[in-house]
C-alpha cells in the first residue's frame, strides 16, 4: 500500500496540481517512515511541529497551492484538533468564500507492535469533525484510487492509512504497475545507502480514481452484514470465508470513505440481511461504529432480526507493547468470527 500511495502522489504531483507533499521526514533522504513519499519531486521535510504542518497546509490551500501534508503517526495529531476543526469550518464560517483543497494523510491503527503511541486509531475523532471528508482504504488499489480523488477534492480530506497494511500486496494490480513485485521495487523503492543520486523510474500511471463516498461490497451474502474498513476489513473478509464453510453466508462491505459514507449500500444490505456488525479498532466509547449502528437502528429498526453489533477496541488508555496486551485490546481474527457467528444465530 505504501507503494500505491507513492504512485498516486507521483501521479497527483504530475497531473493533478499537487504542489507540496510535506511533513516530518517526508522529503529525501528518507521519504517517509513508511516510504510513502520516496522519490517524489515536491516532497520536503518540515520542522518537527504538527501544528505548523496543518497550519502550513491550510495556508497553502488558501493561496491556491495543493498540499498533501503528512502527520507521521496519527498518534501525534491530537495537538492539532483545533486546526482540523478550523480547516473544516473555514468555508462555512466565511459563508462560502474560502474552501480548502488540502489532503492530510496519516498512518493509523495497530498491528505493528507499536505500543501506546504507534497504535492509535483516528476514525472516531475524525468523523466527529464536520467539513472534512475521511477516507481509509484497505487495499493498494483503493488507496491509489482514493488518493487521486482526495487530490482532486475542493474540500479538506483526511486520508487514514492502516499501518498494518502498509506492506500488504493487493489482489488487484494498479493500472500501469508491472506484474512483477521485484521489478516495481527496483523501479520506485529508494536503495539502501547513499540515495543522493537516485531517481525513481515511475511506471506509466493512469487516472484510476475512485469516487469518495462509495462503499464496496467485497463479498455478497444473505444472512448478515459486516461493515468495516482498514485493518479489520481483512479480518472480516477472512472470517466470512471461514463462516461460509460453516454454512453462514455473510455480506462484507468495505466502507472505504468514512465521511460522507455510502448509506444506500448499507441500507440495502441491512434490509436484506437484518443483521449487521460494525467492525473497527478505535476504542469503543463514542465510536464511529456506534454512529452507524444508531442510524441503522433508527431507520431500519423494524427490518432488524437482531441488535446491530459494534465490535471495536476496548476502552483502555492505550495498546500495550506485549502481544498479549495488543491482542486483548483490539479485535483479532477469532473475535470477529465469534461476533459474526453470534450475530448470525441470535434469536430472541
Amino acid at each position, binding site marked *: 500500500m505504501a507503494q500505491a500511495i507513492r504512485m498516486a502522489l507521483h501521479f497527483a504531483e504530475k497531473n493533478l496540481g499537487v504542489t507540496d507533499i510535506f511533513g516530518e521526514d517526508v522529503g529525501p533522504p528518507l521519504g517517509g517512515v513508511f516510504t510513502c513519499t520516496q522519490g517524489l519531486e515536491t516532497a520536503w521535510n518540515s520542522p518537527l511541529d504538527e*501544528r*505548523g504542518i496543518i*497550519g502550513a497546509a491550510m*495556508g497553502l490551500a488558501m493561496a491556491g*497551492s495543493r498540499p498533501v501534508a503528512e502527520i507521521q503517526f496519527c498518534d501525534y495529531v491530537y495537538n492539532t484538533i483545533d486546526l482540523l476543526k478550523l480547516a473544516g469550518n473555514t468555508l462555512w464560517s*466565511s459563508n*462560502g468564500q474560502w474552501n480548502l483543497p488540502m489532503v492530510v494523510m496519516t498512518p493509523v491503527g495497530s498491528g505493528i507492535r507499536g505500543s501506546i503511541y504507534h497504535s492509535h486509531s483516528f476514525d472516531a475523532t475524525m468523523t466527529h469533525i464536520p467539513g472534512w471528508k475521511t477516507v481509509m482504504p484497505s487495499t493498494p488499489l483503493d488507496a491509489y484510487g482514493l488518493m487521486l480523488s482526495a487530490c482532486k477534492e475542493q*474540500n479538506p480530506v483526511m486520508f487514514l492509512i492502516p499501518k498494518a497494511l502498509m506492506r500488504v500486496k493487493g489482489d488487484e494490480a494498479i493500472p500501469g504497475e508491472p506484474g512483477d513485485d521485484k521489478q516495481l521495487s527496483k523501479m520506485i523503492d529508494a536503495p539502501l545507502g547513499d540515495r543522493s543520486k537516485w531517481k525513481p523510474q515511475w511506471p506509466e500511471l493512469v487516472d484510476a480514481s475512485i469516487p469518495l463516498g462509495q462503499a464496496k461490497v467485497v463479498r455478497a451474502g444473505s444472512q448478515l452484514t459486516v461493515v468495516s474498513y482498514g485493518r479489520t476489513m481483512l479480518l472480516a473478509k477472512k472470517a466470512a470465508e471461514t463462516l461460509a464453510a460453516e454454512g453462514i453466508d455473510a455480506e462484507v462491505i468495505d466502507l472505504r470513505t468514512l465521511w460522507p459514507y455510502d448509506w444506500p449500500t448499507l441500507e440495502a444490505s441491512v434490509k436484506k440481511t437484518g443483521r449487521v456488525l460494525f467492525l473497527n479498532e478505535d476504542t469503543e466509547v463514542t465510536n464511529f461504529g456506534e454512529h452507524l449502528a444508531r442510524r441503522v437502528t433508527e431507520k431500519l429498526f423494524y427490518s432488524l432480526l437482531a441488535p446491530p453489533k459494534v465490535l471495536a477496541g476496548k476502552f483502555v488508555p492505550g495498546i500495550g507493547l506485549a502481544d498479549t496486551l495488543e491482542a486483548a485490546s483490539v479485535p483479532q481474527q477469532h473475535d470477529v468470527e465469534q461476533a459474526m457467528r453470534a450475530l448470525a444465530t441470535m434469536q430472541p
Partner: protein
Amino acid sequence: MARDAKKLKPVKEFKPLITKSTELPLDPERLRFMHETMVKARCLEERLIAMYKSGHGYFWIGGPGEEAFNVPLGMLIKKGQGPAFDFCHFHYRQSATLLAMGEEPMGAIRQMKNTATDPYSGGRNFAGHFSKKEWNIVPVSSPIEVQYSMVAGTALAQKRHGGDGISIVTGGDAGTAEGDFATCLVWTSRPGEELPVLIIVTNNRWGISTPYEQVQGVEKISDRGVAFGMRTKTIDGNDPISAYLELKEAFEYVRTERKPYLVEARVSRLYGHSSASGANFNTVEADCLSQFEDKLDAHGIRTKAEAKALREKYAADYAELARVAKEEPFPDGSSIWNHVYAGEAPKDPLAD
C-alpha cells in the same frame, strides 16, 4: 492575471513621502487621508458599540485605540487576490486596516447585526471577524493565535510564485504565549527557505483582565525573533507617522528580501477588551486619535474644528447605515447547510 494587474494600484496615490511644505515627515495629503481614515475607524467602532448597547448585536470586539497603527498598516498593503498580492491573517481588532484598504463600513455593521447580508460570514460570526477572498483577507477566527500557524503556508506559495506579495499576520501580546507564535518564528526562518512574512504583535499590555507583566517575562516581544536570526523592532503604535515610516521600512524589507520581520507595536485598548468587559471608554490610556489631531492642528494641516466636523459626519453616516442594517433580514435557519462542502448542494446528511 489581467485582473491581478488591475488591482495592483494602492488605495490612493500619494506624492513622495517627505515634502517641503511641513516639518512632518509625511506629505499633508497622506496625513489627512490617514487622519480621516482613523476617524472613520473610530466612528465605526463606536457605532458598533452603540449597536451592542442598544440590543442590535450580541457581542462586540474591535480595535478602537489601535487606529494609529492599523491605518498605516492598511495603507501599505498590496491588495488583491492570489499569491501576487498580500495575504492578511488578521485578528479581531483590524477594522481600521480594512477601512484603510478601502473597505466599505457597511459590512462591519451588518456583521454586528448578524444579518444575512453580512458579507464576511452571512450572520454566522462575531463582529470584527472579517473575511474577503477578493483581497486575500483570510477569515478572522476567534481562537487566539492560530493565524500564526497558517501564515507560513500562504507565504510559501508567495515565495514560490515570485513577485513581491507578502503575508501579514497580526495578533495580541497575551496570545504570544501560545505555541503558535513560536511555530511562526520557526517556520518563517528555515535556513535558505525564509518566508516573506510581516509578523506583527500589537501589544496593549492586556489579555482580557490579565496584565502582560503578570504572566510574561519577555521585556520586548520583538526580542523573541532575535534567536531566529530575523529582523525585529518594537515601535510606537500610537503615533501614525512613525508607525507608517517604521512599517514602510519593514514592508520594503519583507517584499524585497523575501524574509520575515517581527514588529511589535505598543498600542492602547480604548474600550476595554470587548462588550463582555463593558466596552466603556478608557480615560487612562493614550488616545492616538486625539493626540494626532493635536499635532495636525499644530502643524496647520487640519484644524480641530475640521477634525470635529469629520467625526460628526462619520458618526451620523454610520448611525444611518446601522438604521438600514436593522431592517435587513436574518439568515434563514435552513441556511446552516450552505457551504459545508464546496461544490455540493446544501443538505442534512442524516435527513431521511
